[in-house]
């Protein structure tokens, strides 16, 4: 299961100012959770695009309940890679950012496209998509599947046990199938019902011929 996010923002600055600011935005008052920043790869392609890979480390802030559930994750900062392509000729920039540790607990991937705002060429718009996923969803699915499979297997054992004990009680070799046992049970039930009816009839007639004081109530 993946959670999807789509959003759009506008910066009231021109594309070249935004692209330059992109490389200078740390530190800022809102980035206290960003601990380190490094360029680990950079190149200019033959068609004049700038490819970069930026490594960030960020604090791993979890709610208390998550810290208790995942104590091993608490001590480690998050490592994040941000890949980017700056295309000055088309005045666009594309970034893709994701965490490379704590990934089994939670993976967040973000893709941004920066371009000139359609309504105002002095502004820059950012189209942002993100995907949040966790392999814990896979774990809970697996637990459910296992639970159901074990339950079904236990139902089979229950029915076999019933067949066995029924056969034993009826003094037969416990090799009959459930269908046969059920058929016999049905016949037996029919006979019993017939016998009961006869008995009831019998008792009723006997009661009818007894003197009133000695008549008993058969419930």
């Amino acid at each position: 299961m993946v959670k999807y996010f789509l959003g759009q923002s506008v910066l009231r600055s021109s594309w070249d100012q935004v692209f330059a600011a992109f490389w200078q935005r740390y530190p800022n008052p809102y980035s206290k959770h960003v601990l380190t920043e490094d360029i680990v790869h950079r190149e200019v392609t033959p068609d004049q695009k700038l490819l970069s890979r930026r490594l960030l480390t960020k604090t791993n802030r979890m709610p208390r309940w998550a810290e208790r559930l995942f104590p091993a994750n608490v001590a480690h900062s998050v490592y994040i890679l941000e890949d980017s392509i700056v295309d000055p000729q088309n005045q666009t920039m594309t970034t893709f950012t994701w965490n490379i540790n704590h990934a089994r607990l939670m993976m967040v991937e973000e893709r941004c496209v920066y371009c000139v705002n359609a309504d105002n060429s002095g502004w820059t718009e950012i189209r942002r998509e993100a995907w949040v996923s966790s392999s814990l969803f896979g774990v809970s699915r697996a637990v459910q599947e296992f639970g159901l499979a074990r339950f079904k297997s236990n139902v089979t054992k229950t029915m076999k046990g019933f067949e066995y004990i029924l056969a034993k009680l009826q003094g037969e070799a416990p090799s009959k199938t459930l269908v046969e046992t059920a058929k016999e049970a049905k016949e037996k039930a029919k006979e019993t019902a017939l016998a009961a009816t006869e008995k009831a009839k019998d008792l009723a007639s006997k009661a009818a011929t007894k003197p009133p004081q000695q008549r008993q109530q058969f419930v």
Partner: protein
Amino acid sequence: MNSIGEACTDMKREYDQCFNRWFAEKFLKGDSSGDPCIDLFKRYQQCVQKAVKEKEIPIEGLEFMGHSKEKPGGSS
């Protein structure tokens, strides 16, 4: 901003200064004449790659732009 390698922070800042100037004044304006920051970048990279290895950060072999080919829009 600090580098992940404590020893690399000064080199990083020097390189960043050079890069930011070149980026705004040359690269964005379509000027493809030489990169004045190559040496600073090399020095900085040597330091950073060493720190990354020492801290065993798994950045090797990861495809550029990750798995950002067609991804499903909307939750699944």
